[in-house]
């Protein structure tokens, strides 16, 4: 799955040549395997707030090697900057500059995390300081090398740094599950959620439906949810049934051949999940199509089929889920959006409109699910190495794949990991969010 260039420049002669010529040097990213340690070394927690102390204590309880002060030349697995009590921009300097020298000691695939507050509240000075973290983190992420990433957790006012959602997000960002997530923030809006009993099977006992599961990212989602303990119902159009059966058999789940754009799709999904597996906890809207054409040449069929499958079908299914008594126990919906829907993409007006639509839908649906302790979020993949992107012409593909902070394309598994996290109990406090899995793509923020 790692592209040839990345393999070539990651060791030996290739590495030396690339370095001399100033060519991109993408790192081999560490990916999650059950049982592996959360981080690649000790964790430095910087910050003097009560939140920082509480967080450090909780991380210690996870059996992590936690440092409150840097030990010179000790390789670090990660640095957590707790900035949850900023009053004014001047408050940034002390913790940030105290952490700065330790960046040199960050191990390959290390993690830098900020924990701060959402910028929409507080005094003008506090808002300035909070928003400042955004620019700081995104720039810092671009400075990191060797597979290291930087991401941020934004706490709503009243949510502590040790809320389940905050700890859950912290665990996700620190772990190899977030390999291709870089320069991103996730908001923790409430203290809902629950940390898993067993970190290797956070979805144990859950029944999850994955649409578009026959291949590519959908198949990876099915496999990842199964690995994390869920029983998976793999859904795809009848014409993709052979690949779907393969995935369903691999994950010891069931295959449901169903066109999600059918009027009765929502009811059939619920009937199957509840009838065969007794419950329904998680729905992942992954199914999507592209019918690319410059807008000037766009026709009705191309436009309407993309809108119908990519967003209208999700809205219809969500209506049925929201009305169902079977989707009331901390339900989770995760939708696959796209960076095309954020930054735009030439030739994809229809697709970008549908994916932009997914993000709007997620935001507006979050309050509706909240009353049942539920959440809905979207994951927006950037350049992911799939059968689909393998068909992009070489030069275009090569540019698309290098234009991010990690200088490589992501894997379907990377998208799946983000979805598995948002589908977990730990992510209960996170809703209405869009999490990008793009290696901090230079395009579109």
């Amino acid at each position, binding site marked *: 799955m790692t592209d040839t260039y990345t393999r070539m420049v990651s060791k030996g002669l290739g590495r030396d040549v690339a370095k001399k010529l100033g060519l991109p040097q993408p790192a081999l990213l560490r990916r999650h395997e059950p049982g592996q340690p959360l981080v690649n070394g000790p964790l430095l927690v910087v910050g003097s707030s009560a939140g920082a102390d509480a967080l450090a204590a909780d991380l210690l309880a996870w059996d992590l090697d936690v440092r409150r002060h840097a030990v010179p030349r000790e390789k670090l697995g990660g640095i957590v900057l707790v900035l949850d009590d900023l009053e004014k921009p001047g408050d940034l300097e002390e913790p940030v500059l105290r952490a700065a020298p330790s960046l040199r000691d960050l191990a390959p695939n290390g993690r830098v995390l900020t924990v701060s507050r959402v910028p929409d509240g507080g005094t003008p000075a506090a808002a300035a300081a909070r928003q400042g973290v955004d620019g700081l983190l995104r720039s810092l992420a671009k400075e990191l090398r060797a597979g290291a990433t930087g991401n941020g957790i934004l706490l709503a006012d009243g949510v502590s740094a040790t809320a389940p959602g905050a700890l859950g997000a912290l665990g996700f960002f620190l772990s190899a599950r977030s390999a291709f997530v870089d320069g991103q923030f996730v908001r923790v809006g409430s203290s809902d959620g629950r940390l898993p009993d067993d970190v290797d099977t956070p979805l144990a006992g859950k029944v999850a439906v994955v649409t578009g599961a026959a291949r590519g990212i959908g198949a990876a989602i099915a496999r990842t949810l199964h690995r994390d303990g869920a029983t998976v119902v793999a859904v795809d159009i009848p*014409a993709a049934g052979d690949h779907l059966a393969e995935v369903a*058999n691999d994950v*010891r789940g*069931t295959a449901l051949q169903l066109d999600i754009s059918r009027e009765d799709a929502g009811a059939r999904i619920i009937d199957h999940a509840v009838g065969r597996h007794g419950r329904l906890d998680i729905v992942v809207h992954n199914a999507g199509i592209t019918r690319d054409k410059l807008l000037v040449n766009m026709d009705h069929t191309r436009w309407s089929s993309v809108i119908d499958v990519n967003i209208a079908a999700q809205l219809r299914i969500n209506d049925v889920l929201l009305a169902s008594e079977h989707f009331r126990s901390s339900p989770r919906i995760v939708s696959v959006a796209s960076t095309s829907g954020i930054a735009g993409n030439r030739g994809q007006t229809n697709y970008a409109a549908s994916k932009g639509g997914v993000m709007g839908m997620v935001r507006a649906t979050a309050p509706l699910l909240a009353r049942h302790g539920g959440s809905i979020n979207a994951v927006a993949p950037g350049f992911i190495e799939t059968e689909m992107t393998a068909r992009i012409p070489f030069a275009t593909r090569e540019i698309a794949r290098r234009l991010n902070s990690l200088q490589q394309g992501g894997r379907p598994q990377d998208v799946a990991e983000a979805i598995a996290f948002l589908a977990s109990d730990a992510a209960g406090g996170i809703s209405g969010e869009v999490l990008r899995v793009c290696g901090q793509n230079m395009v579109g923020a």
Partner: protein
Amino acid sequence: MSIDGQSVNGPEAPAASRAASSAHAVRRAVVVGGNRIPFARTGGAYTKSSNQDMLTAALDGLIARFGLQDERIGEVAAGAVLKHSRDFNLTREAVLGSALSAETPAYDLQQACATGLETVLGLANKIKLGQIDSAIAGGVDSASDAPIAVSEGLREVLLDLSRAKTLPQRLQILARLRPKDLAPDAPNTGEPRTGLSMGEHQALTTAQWKITREAQDELAYNSHRNLAAAYDAGFFDDLLTPYRGLTRDSNLRADTSLDKLASLKPVFGRNLGSQATMTAGNSTPLTDGASTVLLASEEWADQHDLPKLATILDGVAAAVDFVHGKDGLLMAPAFAVPRLLARNGLTLDDIDYFEIHEAFAGTVLSTLAAWEDEEFGRTRLGLEGAFGKVDRSRLNVNGSSLAAGHPFAATGGRIVASLAKMLHEKGAPDGRPALGLISICAAGGQGVVALLEAQ
């Protein structure tokens, strides 16, 4: 009672209520569901697929649909009509290649075109008797990947050669070879005892019952139209898993018309002159494909949270003496169905869906004609008059073999799964569960028929 032993009422079963039949003295065997791959015309999408490949694919689709991975199924039975000698354990090999538990036993069965239905009946009986709780019945055939044998002369030479000990002995044996011995021996559908192909046999029957070309073309037309409509309605979404790029049966011609069918030249019975009515359009083509059906006791289905579509009530096998020309080669169901219905206390009017396998349009129509014939009813079935009339609006309503194709052993599974789904959807319209009848004719003058009831 009739004079020739083909009577409806066997000595053991006076016409009685179904409640008194053996089917109800034991527990029920239900159809949970089925899966098949689309059927492909020979030389098409599955040219390079073996029977084992196709049967494994059909099994894996069934396993995925019902979550049977690692499940130890009571028994799997399937078969193929055209079979390589290496496939002596075809079904067990397919099970080992599937996602089922490797501890699932399996056996092969062969009864020509009735193979698939006979696997269903045999396994259902084991379930009814409590010998097993779950079973998968199936069938597969490939006319593309058909076995080709060496000639009898070459075979004898090769076997003698393997037993020879010295070079002179070997040379002596090889000298026996004649050029004609090198010609391969391909399988054919000819009847060994008459030398006639199945089509030629049916052509005689079709002419005997005076079945018109128009009636045959209309039946073929309806088959295509009904099958196409069923696909469009999504009927096969949970009955079929695509394979090798095919998502529908490749023989299906949704756009065929009566005019198009009328334009085809007769291919069977051409020596009958103006009575030659059987064309490639109203006969089934050689086809590749596989089908499977999941059967279970009600308890097993409930324990596994699986649906119960229909009950396998009863089945009858019959045979006719076609060798001496007493009856047409494919007419055995004309005798089997009256026996089946009589011993269950039913008439044709009680049946909600008829699934009469369309080996040829002429086969279906000859059977219906025989049932409507007073003389046949009296002299051959031992009844007071005609056996009865099939309501044509209940016949093969989602298409049958003329449109779908007919991979010999796979047809039974296709029909059982489809009929079970139709019956389940129909439910109990007048307070009594809907009934479905399956009739399949087979080479050798045989026929197997079965009765299913909606769950």
